[in-house]
């Protein structure tokens, strides 16, 4: 009898454990309820709360809406912390926001801002930039190779590389950063590939011709455009600018007589520093509404 009781006890314990464990795993099923509850506790008097809750929401986020909410929380926290003169907390929240931000360029900018605000983050910033460079280096090289292949009428290589979504996305992002129209660049590249596929020379400058037993090299007369150049001067300028951007070479020539390059590449736009106000603008948050009430940000508790 005792044996039976013992077995029954063990079974009950196992079931109870399974139930409890199962119950714990179901908590994340209702993030909305949980996040609303947490957000309701936010108040400007406790700035740490914005960091803690923002980080937690960002980590748990499974939908775009949840991620947006986490980013808004952190963005408001950044503004409030900066207003309070708390540079350490502001920098921490910038880094937390960078970890949630899906756009890698914006994430990098947030890291830059964190380092600008709090110089003690130097090594973390350097490590982030190196990691980012390493992670994207191969992709950027592939994208640059694709542009090169398009220029030199290597139809096969260009098609292969541009067939990758990541390469295309990298090209679009770089074009945007370089001040080019990403859609226009896309269109130009694919138009050039189409031309190259119709070009019987297939990237060759000279072809061999036999004339009365004599072998001669002659210029392949079917080129639609010169090898290595674009359909026109403006297209060539855009392709070079894009390729330099992909190779991180836009700013690198630091020796003499290089400023004319800026004029050729038509890059005279003003330099803009990343600032807290630009974060507030980017995430469209209102610093006068730091409370979360009734599923929206409000100005009063």
């Amino acid at each position: 009898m005792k044996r039976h009781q013992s077995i029954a006890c063990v079974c009950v314990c196992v079931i109870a454990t399974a139930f409890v464990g199962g119950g714990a795993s179901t908590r994340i099923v209702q993030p909305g309820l949980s996040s609303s509850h947490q957000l309701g506790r936010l108040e400007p008097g406790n700035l740490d709360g914005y960091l803690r809750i923002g980080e937690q929401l960002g980590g748990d986020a499974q939908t775009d809406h949840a991620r947006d909410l986490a980013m808004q929380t952190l963005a408001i926290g950044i503004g409030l912390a900066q207003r309070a003169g708390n540079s350490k907390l502001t920098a921490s929240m910038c880094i937390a926001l960078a970890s949630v931000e899906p756009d890698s360029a914006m994430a990098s900018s947030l890291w830059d801002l964190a380092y600008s605000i709090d110089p003690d983050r130097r090594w973390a910033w350097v490590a982030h930039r190196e990691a980012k460079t390493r992670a994207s280096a191969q992709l950027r090289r592939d994208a640059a190779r694709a542009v090169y292949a398009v220029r030199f009428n290597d139809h096969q290589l260009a098609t292969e590389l541009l067939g990758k979504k990541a390469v295309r996305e990298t090209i679009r992002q770089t074009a945007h950063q370089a001040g080019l129209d990403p859609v226009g660049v896309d269109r130009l590249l694919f138009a050039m590939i189409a031309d190259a596929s119709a070009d019987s020379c297939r990237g060759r400058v000279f072809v061999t011709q036999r004339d009365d037993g004599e072998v001669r090299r002659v210029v392949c007369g079917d080129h639609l455009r010169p090898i290595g150049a674009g359909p026109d001067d403006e297209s060539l300028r855009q392709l070079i600018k894009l390729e330099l951007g992909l190779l991180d070479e836009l700013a690198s020539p630091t020796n003499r007589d290089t400023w004319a390059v800026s004029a050729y590449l038509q890059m005279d736009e003003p330099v803009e520093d990343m600032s807290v106000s630009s974060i507030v603008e980017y995430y469209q948050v209102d610093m006068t509404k730091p409370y979360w009430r009734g599923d929206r940000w409000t100005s009063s508790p």
Partner: protein
Amino acid sequence: MASRATRSPIVEFLGEDAGAGGPFALLGLPHEMISDEQIIRACHRRLYQIDRHRHRSTPDASEVRLAVHAAASQLLDPKLRAELARRWPAGMPVAVPKAWKPSQQTSRLTPGFIQKAKLLIAASGGWNATARKRLAHFARVNRVGALELIGALSPQMPQESAGSVVLSPKTSPEVDKPRFDEQVYLIGPPPTRSFDWFAAYGLLLVLATVVVLVMVFLPIRGDPMDRAGASSVRVGTDGGGQAAASVGGNHSVPTGDWKERTHYTAIAHEFDQLARRAQSDMEPSVERFGQVYSKFVVEWSVFPAPALERTGLHIAEFVRRMSGSEVLFKALLPILGCDGTQRSPSQAMIRAAVIDVVRSEPGLSPQTRAQLGVIRKRCSGSESRETSSILQALVPVSEIIGVDARTDDPAWWRDWIQGVRAATFEDESQRTRLVLSAMSSRLRDPAPSNPSWIQSAIELVSVVPWRADSPARAWLLGQFADPAVSTPRLAVLTEAIATHSGAQQVNAQMVLNPSATFSQRQQLAETYRSAWTGSVSGAKSGSKPGTDQFSGLINEMRLRVSITPTQMDQQQASRAIVELARLNTAAWQFAQGQDAIAADMLDGAKGKIASASDPEQFVLTASQRDSKWSQQAINAQSASELSALFAQLVSDDGPGINSAHALVFLATLHADSKIRASARTQIIRYQDHPSVLLALDRVVANKRISSRLEELVVTVVGDKLPSRTDESWYLFAHKALLVRLTRSLSRSVESDLPALEHELDLAYGGRVVTQSALTQPTDGAVDHTARLYRKMMLDASVTAGGVGIELHDLAKIQSATDVRLVRAKRPIDGFFAYQRGVCELLGILTQRDIPGSSLRVDDLLTELEDRLGRSGSVIDQIAQVERCIAQFWIVRLEGRSP
């Protein structure tokens, strides 16, 4: 002692000129007067002259004060003034340089001169705006007052001017003495000097008696406060019984309100008595205070500074004593405060300033202070700044009232100017600053220009000195450069300056067109700048060389800073950058003790900027000639055959697109070593040609790289590359060729940037190394800026943690520069990143080196942030940073004047 005994008190206190007899001489005024304000100012000056005298507390002083006041009272009546002008000579202005004093010898209003002026009117088509402008200019260049000239031209005036001291064309051996034309005067002047004095004393005695009666007895009549009234009697009778000057007849005292004649000393004395007796007779004192205070706020501007300061303290003391009683203090509040309908700015000024002084009293309760703070806000709309000095309180109040003013009413501005004159007393620079602030505000008013603004502008520009050392010049140039300034309003201001200010080197042509474009404004600014800069260098001759360079440098920097607009096109920005950079380098050299180099830099600061070189034309299309050449070359069998072809390249200005491919093939793949070598030579000759670079770039992507190709690429790019067996060879070779191709293609674009880079290379080189770098650029502008940045960072780090520099501030500059460098998108961004770092470091070093400069440095950095945010291009931003560096140098140089 004997000589002193024979001198009258007037001569003793006011000098010989004042003792010539009559009210005009006493006040130092001419017969022709433009306004009553001129009389009040003259009275104010004479009283101040007495207050500064060592015997100012004697009965003689009081006697002369009363005489001065009596004379002013007489002249304030226009009819009586005209009558007195026929009897008494004109006076010599007080404290006017001798060269300005009217003299018959220097008078140019001769019949010939007036004839010329008439011809000018005739040539202008009659009496119209053109004629008026030309006349004004004509008067200016001949050093004659425009009003004087116009007066002489009118038909009735020549007769009067004939008898006038100023306008008489006749000459006299005694030029320093006033002359009187007996044909003009109805009653001739006293025949001898002694009789003159006798008459003057008699007149003064009668006048003083009348004034005392008016001041003292009339208030007593309707005044319940007998003792206070009696005190006024004492003030008047202490020394005023003998000195009143009267011109006799029925004109001894002009009729009018008694308040117009009350002397400031009486008011000051009233407050003194009220403060003393406030404890014993509290309730009646408040009533009396109300009467005297209302008089004071009207008359305060005639108070000399010491009397005004004393009065402020007496009022504060009185209010403090009254604040003990809640009822009485409540009764005081409406007396002290502004009622909101106050239209006189000078009255609002003094009311606000008095409250500031009262609030500085240590014995006031917080509640009392708060109540005073509330009524203070109604006066000027600004927060109270507690101070025990009424003059110190008046300056910020008058500034805020002037800047906040939204009116062009000339009467309002006259009143404001009167208040500012009283508030700033003898501090001309302070007065200039206040008026310039107010004018800045009016110029930015979007309301259209109107006739009232024309009058007000004339009033305002007349207050400001436009001398070479005055900040007004730099201010005006700054207004031209600021897009926020309304062009029609600025046009009116330039007209007022050209015709009414007495500014030198400005003529009637230098008036802005109300519909001028911003570019035309800039051109006129340049005209002003040239005119005034010329005068600065002209003024320099004859002074010491070191001081000469120093002041010349600061003046140049100020001017350049002022005329640098908020937004510029590339050409304007490039010019501003170069001029500012040269000046900054001159300042740097000056600070290093390299005066000779600094002088050279200063002389060349406005020199020409190297012009952009002609763009090169590259054709990247295949022509028939190019195809033919490339086919002949690639199929050539011998080096001699090729030589003839290479000669063609010279005439074709380099290889075409297909020819370049042929050359690369020959240089790397041909079996004949001679052909390879000669093709290689041609490639190196045309290594900057885009066709050659494209052809090389095409072959570096090959899987097998020959040693010949590797060597050729390294030679062309002029840089080290990894070994050709290394996986990264292609990447590095391609990058290097692409960068070189970009630079080559950039030569096809016309741009000022290469010239600008060269100039900045020289300028920043001059700040980093020795003078050899001034003439020989070596490492490029970016490199020189980076070296300067590191040098300054090191300098600042050495003293960091001590006085003036926080390590954290340096770390922030370092981090910001690091971020800007990694975010740089083009070579010029690298320069900008280091240049901003240099600017911020210079700010920190200025705070360290120049005590008290922290606020100024912070303001300049804030202004820089604002300007950078509004810039439309990176070139514009570089100009703004260079401007900020120049501002820091001005602070440094002024703080360490040699």
